[in-house]
């Protein structure tokens, strides 16, 4: 895999309402993770930290040619630990559950070509900037998303739907995990955002796009996103990671070829 220079920034805030930050994140290039824990103190924060610890282990011995396999293994290990942790607690406190969402981005080597492998479980989100526009890549594992997909409600209705907090997949779920994977060429991701629903639940996509488009330094962009979510009410823990691939020329082969041809014609074929 060619060396790729990544610039990145991360920020998290407990918000104005919660007393515990149950979000955890990992920045260990080329591995990036955001996890949003559920279950309260010593529940959600522990569950999300377990995910981060398992991806830290992955990052320490990372082989980009086995990216998808290693990511699956890390998720499976985190799932097993969270289940064990939950069962130990339930012995003392019936009905107790801990769980967490996870979104992760890793660079992988796909037949010699470096690509982004993205993975999602739950309602934390992955966005990208492509052709100068913000696009949500991950699809929420939530009841309202399924209602939207089946045309029963509109996205607008989803944001006020009574079941908008019910997620259908998470680490810690006794039914097992079914992460969604995405494989994207580097050139189709001008900028990548991983964030918890404490960001997306507080500020609109338009504001996210405005910040990601206008703030050049990814560290500042991550800070601005989290501060905007807190300023908008901070009802939940908010976490954001912003990643740029440095020196990326979009669609390199096409552009360089065309530039060469046009230069050639201007110079009268002297190249």
């Amino acid at each position, binding site marked *: 895999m060619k060396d790729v220079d990544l610039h990145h920034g991360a920020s998290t805030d407990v918000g104005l*309402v*919660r*007393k*515990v930050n*149950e979000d955890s994140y990992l920045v260990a290039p080329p591995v990036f993770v955001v996890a949003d824990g*559920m*279950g*309260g*103190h010593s*529940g*959600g924060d522990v569950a999300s930290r377990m995910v981060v610890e398992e991806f830290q282990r992955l990052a320490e011995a990372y082989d980009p040619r086995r990216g*998808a*396999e290693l*990511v*699956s293994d890390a998720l499976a290990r985190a799932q097993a630990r969270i289940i064990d942790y939950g069962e130990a607690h*339930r*012995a003392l*406190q*019936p*009905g*107790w*559950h*801990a*769980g967490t969402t996870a979104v992760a981005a890793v660079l992988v080597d*796909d037949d010699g070509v470096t690509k982004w492998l993205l993975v999602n479980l739950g*309602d934390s989100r992955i966005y990208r900037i492509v052709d100068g526009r913000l696009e949500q*890549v991950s*699809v929420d594992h939530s*009841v309202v998303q*399924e209602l939207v*997909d*089946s045309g029963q409600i509109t996205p607008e209705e989803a944001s006020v739907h*009574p*079941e908008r*907090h*019910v*997620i*259908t*997949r*998470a680490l*810690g*779920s*006794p*039914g*097992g995990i*079914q*992460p*969604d*994977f*995405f*494989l*994207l*060429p580097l050139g*189709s991701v001008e900028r990548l955002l991983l964030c918890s629903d404490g960001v997306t*639940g507080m500020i609109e996509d338009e504001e996210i796009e405005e910040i990601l488009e206008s703030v050049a330094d990814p560290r500042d962009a991550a800070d601005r996103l989290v501060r905007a979510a807190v300023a908008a009410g901070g*009802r*939940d823990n908010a976490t954001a990671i912003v990643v740029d691939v440095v020196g990326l020329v979009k669609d390199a*082969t*096409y552009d360089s*070829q065309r530039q060469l041809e046009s230069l050639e014609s201007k110079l009268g074929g002297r190249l």
Partner: protein
Amino acid sequence: MSTEARFAAGDWYAVVGDRATVLLPGSQRGRVATLWDLADSGASADALLDALLADGLSSLDHFALVAHGDDRTRLLVRGAPTAAVSSAGGDELVSADPGTAWAERLVAGVSSIRVTLTGDAAAEHLLAPGLARVSVVEFGTPAPAAEQATEDVAPALVAEAEAEPEPAVTPEPEPEPQPEPEPEPVAAADPVPEAPAAAPMQFGEPADDPTPTGETPAVADDWSDRDGQTQVGAPAPDFDRPPVPGQEMAPEVVSQPVAALVFSTGDVVAVDRTVLVGRAPEARRFASHDQPHVVTVPSPHQEISSTHLEIRPGAGADHGSAIATDLGSTNGTVLALPGLDVEELKPGIAVSLVPGAVLDLGDGVTIQVTNP
């Protein structure tokens, strides 16, 4: 017995063939594709059982299998499922004793079988061959006696659940009840702890989140957007990826390639799973076990779209062959079938490929379809 079948929605998988039905928990998604491939090709109960057990029993805590013979019905249940069988010989409730691999019956003259996986919902939807997400499956016409038998099902399950102290034991002397600000009817109606995601997990409530100062968040109850409200609920009774309209759901990965694709660029790719072709193709929403082949082709004049064409193993009438779908590409895809006029693929409409077919994506890139 008539093999007419009905089901109640849930999160177990029902793999329904003409001769046999296999029921698996939602966590066994990986096995479903293989089983469907077999069931769809009319495999016998033995063949299905063979495939089911191929990876060993240790990773398969629960399943049920119902096979319809000419005059006798064969039934296997392992783990949580319970089957109420009504036949000429009387009614019987079949469930695996703890510690045994499974319970098996061969019953003649069966009038109805009701297999309860989770909950005790009425089986009201018609179950056709294919895949479904279910909680209860019923075969034949339930006699009143069968209804009686089902009455026993729920208590039996609860009794089996003793290993899980969760719903039954509440020794907490604290006055604080299980906090449940919003009544959750699904959870209340479902006493089976085995139910993976069908019983929504109530994650910690605000009360579970003791603050250092002992104060409660200075917000009213209508501030529901915190993690404290986040629950895990049952997924919709459907696959997560919507199928192409009018298409049967294809298994993601098949054991034998149905075709090979010879690219003009020299690449040769087997169609044993979804193949995505384009100038910079993107693969979306796949599971770790069905990662698509992604084939990047050069397109100096950008006649080829970034994710242009999908080729995958067909299902139903197209079982055993590859099918191609233009994914709404800008400049389209042309298909030449041997002995026929060339045609342009309609975006989103799958066409069946036969050996000898050639697909033209533009920019001089063609794909020839051959036998695997």
